[in-house]
């Protein structure tokens, strides 16, 4: 009777990975709370402003050595403001509607998805969510309080846009 050698560690890991691929465990959904989302949003705001300040500083330094008329300078400031607005809006809408994760969300392991199915919101829905988020912030951030009470941890902007914020496993099963 021949004894079979015990499988090596690499073989056991490969077998476990194959088993996971064949029978993936369902992902456990966790709705993310106010603090986690606030930290992610802070990171995004920092990133947006670092880029904006860098670009603005570069343009300002360039203009400082040029003789630009006052009207043109005013127009450039207005253009800068519009660019900043577009950059901020584009940042959120693009990330939410493509991967569901901004860089801040990715770092915190959370993502935005539709509340009725596991899909990222379309650009229009993402834009609506951003506008609603701005509106929710106006009454002294009162629009975010429902996150503390709602069973699915939704804020006013989530309710209006039909989205939820859930955990995003670092290594998705399968």
């Amino acid at each position, binding site marked *: 009777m021949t004894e079979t050698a015990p499988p090596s560690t690499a073989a056991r890991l490969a077998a476990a990975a194959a088993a996971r691929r064949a029978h993936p465990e369902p*992902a456990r959904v966790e709705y993310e*709370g106010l603090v986690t989302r606030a*930290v992610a949003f802070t990171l995004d705001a920092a990133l947006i402003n670092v880029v904006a300040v860098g670009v603005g500083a570069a343009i300002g330094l360039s203009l400082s050595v040029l003789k630009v008329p006052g009207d043109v300078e005013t127009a450039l400031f207005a253009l800068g403001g519009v660019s900043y607005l577009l950059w901020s809006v584009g940042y959120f809408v693009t990330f939410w509607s493509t991967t569901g994760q901004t860089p801040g969300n990715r770092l*915190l*392991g959370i993502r935005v998805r539709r509340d009725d199915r596991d899909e990222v919101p379309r650009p229009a829905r993402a834009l609506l969510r951003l506008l609603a988020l701005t509106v929710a912030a106006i009454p002294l951030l009162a629009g975010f309080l429902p996150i503390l*009470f709602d*069973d699915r941890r939704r804020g006013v902007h989530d309710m209006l846009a039909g989205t939820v914020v859930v955990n995003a496993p670092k290594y998705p099963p399968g």
Partner: protein
Amino acid sequence: MNAPLQIRDAQDRPTAGRTTLGTLVGLGGAVAGFALRPVIAGIELGLGLERELRRGLTRRTEAALLAGLDALLLSPVAGEAVDRVLASELTRRTVSGALAGPLVEATARDLVTFEVIERAADELLASETVDGVLDRAQAADVPRRVADRLLADGVLDQVVARVLEGPELERVVESALDSAAMERLVVRVIESRLLNEAVERLLQTDELWLMVDEIARSPSVSAAITRQSAGFVDEVADGVRARSRKADDLIESRIRRAFRRGQRERPGGEGAGT
């Protein structure tokens, strides 16, 4: 007048007798010495011949021995004899038995303890014996044949495998490392100028820095640095994530308790919250 003469004759008579006897003995000795001179010369000649004969015989014997040794080493018989000895089962058994027994360990320990190797090396290097032996062995092409045979028959492989697998090598290394002689040797090497100069020359070579550049540019090193950096970022992010989630749960539970609301329903799996 006659009386004194008589007295003198009586006194001179024994003296004259002794003188005559001595003269006769001296004469006899001289005659005997003269007569034995050829005998003595013959004996001396014989002894000289014996010495010369012995010297000549010794020289011729040594020359004959060396000539015989040369002939033996140069003859194909020597190679065949070496081959047969090395290929024999007796050699294998002897080597295995010697390595397996306590002899190796005891010998190694004593060699280290009594500094036998150092003393033997000093003696050998001081004499010309080593040069002579090596010259003759090299002239007869013995080293190459021995090496060829050892490699071809796998004897060397067996010996190396046995030494590496057995516990003797470990014990020998341990005893050598524990010895004061080894410690002194290591200290001497570290403190020697040779090591410093070797390191300095190594650092001055372009090849070393080329090798360092190649290693630094290698994909495996880059991947390792990237993994380490990513691992650090992940670690920080994991920490922030865990703390923020704990803060979420804490704040939420307190607010719900304050407003007398039940605990939030936690979803159990995929789709539970949809």
